[in-house]
């Protein structure tokens, strides 16, 4: 049972006080992604008590919930109706909130096939940098009235406003899922996934780890089983657990804490980069590559840059290093101007994303 608790007026009063005192705020949901990005200092603004499902009708393919609503409760509600958040956001703890999902903008294993968090955001209700409650987007799939603030907010790490409510597109769960495992060297796995991109196999996730390629197929039974016959490989038992572990990073690969965990993002058809092999795991058909490494920051960002990619320090702090890949000068200027426009008094999650703002 999801508690129905509207604390909008309390939150708005706290923002008003912060504006009056020019006192920055640190916006907090479940705190499960506090490790991600920069730390921010400021008075805590706790959104997690702001809970409740405002509306959910399966036939409308949309759920609207207050930002503090636990992610796992929303997932359970959708599952009971044969639906899901198709972008598979990570749930790092039972405290993870739906507002945090949108603020951090992290998607799970299905991302290249099902779309990202922002692809599913239909609307947000915010407390703006002017201290007002504002509604952007809505509950309908198509909406081009005004600038797309809802998708801009997604992944902005709480730096542009306080998310009060979110409306998300939901999708039906697939009828059948089957995960295949194929033992092969990384080069072969790269070639196979590159070929598969042009196919109509119902691929919904990939992972390459420890010499094994995992392929998840999702769809109607006939298509899934026919694809299995063509691709080959061994079906994986308890596949759900495997993908959940990957999504929520409880998988053994993510249990190392002695070195920083880097997340490298590349165009999917980027070939194997030998410097990044070793202690690594590849997802998203080659687009998302996780690496534990002590390679110096400049070097790893250079490797990323050469492959048309970017590199994020996902977990583990490196003194003086911005976790997010540096922006070009003109992009930094534009983004800084945008931050100043939407948060003119500079009170929301300062430095959480980039140190400059």
């Amino acid at each position, binding site marked *: 049972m999801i508690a129905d608790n509207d604390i909008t007026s309390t939150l708005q009063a706290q923002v008003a006080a912060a504006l009056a005192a020019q006192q920055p705020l640190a916006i907090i949901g479940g705190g499960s992604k506090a490790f991600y990005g920069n730390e921010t200092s400021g008075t805590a603004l706790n959104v997690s008590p702001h809970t409740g499902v405002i509306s959910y009708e399966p036939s*409308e393919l949309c759920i609207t919930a207050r930002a503090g609503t636990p992610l796992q409760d929303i997932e359970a509600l959708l599952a009971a109706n044969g639906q899901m958040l198709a972008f598979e956001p990570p749930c790092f703890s039972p405290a993870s909130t739906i507002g945090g999902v949108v603020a951090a903008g992290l998607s799970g294993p299905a991302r290249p096939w099902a779309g990202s968090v922002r692809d599913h955001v239909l609307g947000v209700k915010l407390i703006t940098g002017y201290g007002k409650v504002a509604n952007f987007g809505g509950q309908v799939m*198509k909406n*081009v009235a005004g*600038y797309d603030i809802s998708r801009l907010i997604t992944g*902005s790490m709480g730096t542009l406003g306080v998310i009060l409510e979110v409306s998300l597109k939901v999708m*039906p769960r697939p009828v059948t899922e089957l995960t295949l495992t194929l033992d092969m060297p990384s080069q072969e796995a790269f070639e196979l996934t590159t070929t598969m991109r042009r196919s109509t196999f119902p691929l919904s996730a990939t992972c390459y780890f420890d010499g094994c390629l995992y392929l998840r197929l999702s769809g109607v039974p006939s298509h899934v089983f026919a694809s299995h016959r063509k691709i080959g490989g061994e079906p994986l038992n308890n596949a759900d657990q495997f993908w959940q572990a990957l999504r929520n990073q409880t998988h053994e690969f993510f249990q190392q804490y002695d070195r920083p965990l880097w997340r490298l993002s590349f165009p999917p058809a980027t070939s194997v980069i030998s410097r990044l092999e070793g202690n690594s795991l590849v997802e998203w058909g080659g687009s998302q590559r996780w690496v534990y490494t002590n390679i110096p920051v400049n070097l790893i960002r250079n490797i990323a840059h050469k492959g048309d990619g970017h590199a994020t320090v996902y977990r583990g702090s490196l003194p003086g290093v911005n976790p997010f890949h540096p922006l070009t000068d003109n992009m930094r200027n534009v983004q800084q101007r945008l931050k100043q426009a939407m948060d003119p008094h500079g009170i929301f999650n300062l430095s959480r994303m980039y140190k400059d703002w």
Partner: protein
Amino acid sequence: MNTATDPKRQLLRQLNDILPPEAILTAKEDLHPYECDGLTAYRHLPLAVVLPTTTEQVQLIMKTCSRLKIPVVARGAGTGLSGGALPHADGIVLSLARFKQILAIDTANLHARVQPGVRNLAISQAVDHLGLFYAPDPSSQIACSIGGNVAENSGGVHCLKYGLTVHNILEIKVVTIEGELLTIGNDRQDTPGYDLLALMTGSEGMLGIVVEVMVKLTVKPETVQVLMADFAAIKDAGDAVAAIISRGIIPAGLEMMDKPAIRAAEDFIHAGYPLDANAILLCELDGTEDAVSDQVSRVSAILKAHHAGTIHIAKTATERARLWAGRKSAFPAVGRISPDYYCMDGTIPRKHLAHVLQKINDFSQIYGLGVANVFHAGDGNLHPLILYDANRPGELEKAERFGADILALCVKVGGSITGEHGVGHEKLDSMCVQFGEAELEVFHAVKRAFDPDELLNPGKAVPTLHRCAELGAMHVHHGQLSHPELPRF
């Protein structure tokens, strides 16, 4: 006037340094084709039209206009339906029509880099032999340009499954009002920093000029089937749509037409639509042979359970194309039965469909103007076509009020005033219905961050607070405008 300081003369002189003479239009007869876009009810002549061919030229033009404070209205193919490309009398129209190249096709990463003047359909045609296509397909796809699609976040009949423009572009190159070139997005699955790609998409030329687009290419489905079902009651058709989606089926397209729209389309295209039906549903299913045949039988059963009359399954590709042709030509078809029509673009939660259509019919009676409805039923996007005759005094104004009432109704039931056509010049007043001061304040702040002097497409897309306040005051002072019997907000 002192000619040295006359901004228009200065502008023309400086444009002459940037562009060859044939790329600058200033003669009245040359400007006339640019006086409006697809919304012909509003027209202005600009100072000049410029037709650059390179990004560097666009950058120089922007620098010049920025320095001289000359408004710039970007224009693609000019097929927009909200007056977004309506010229500014003191500004220039920057046409991207000569940016026509498909620059690169990447079959490994599944994308194409194209210039903004490339036609939507031309992209799919260029990659057809590779088994790929570009998914968003607005009805005007034979003419509309990809740059315009980005400006409006265009949809089409396949959005429910394949998404809008914002879901199908990966990167854009944008020239700012200062003449700087920004690369926004990439061909990875995420970008560091804010999601400016989403912000720029649908921003109606208010934040920058798109000079290159990287579009996502999608693998063509193995097979496609189209079903047509007719209904005696619109409510049954609406309920059938909800039922299909509730059962976990996401059709590639799901379209509804009401009786006047069916008649107009059938007279025009001879698509084989049943003339006695009050509504028809077109349902397209795509995927593998097995998956599609499974879905065809499930959808047929759902349609029958909701009192569909006959269910017709297109047997050949030609027949399928003909069924869609009727829908895609609904606008010109209506153009044949009425001297003028005014196309609306509201979105509503699907569950309110029957109620909204009933209300639209009520409005039609009150205003004495006919209306035909086509509906992207899958995603709740309604296109009522209001029939009027501009030569009859007062009819345009009546049609506009009728349209504004429909949009207010869409907002009231939880929808939006525009699903895919944009606000442009046309829906500024309706923006005041959907948004209040808190939202407009943020929109204006975003605009200032990109364009502090308001030179990019000034006066479009986002109304001033003052305009909305005046409009609000008008409602207060005069009650409910000309028809007090109408519910408005």
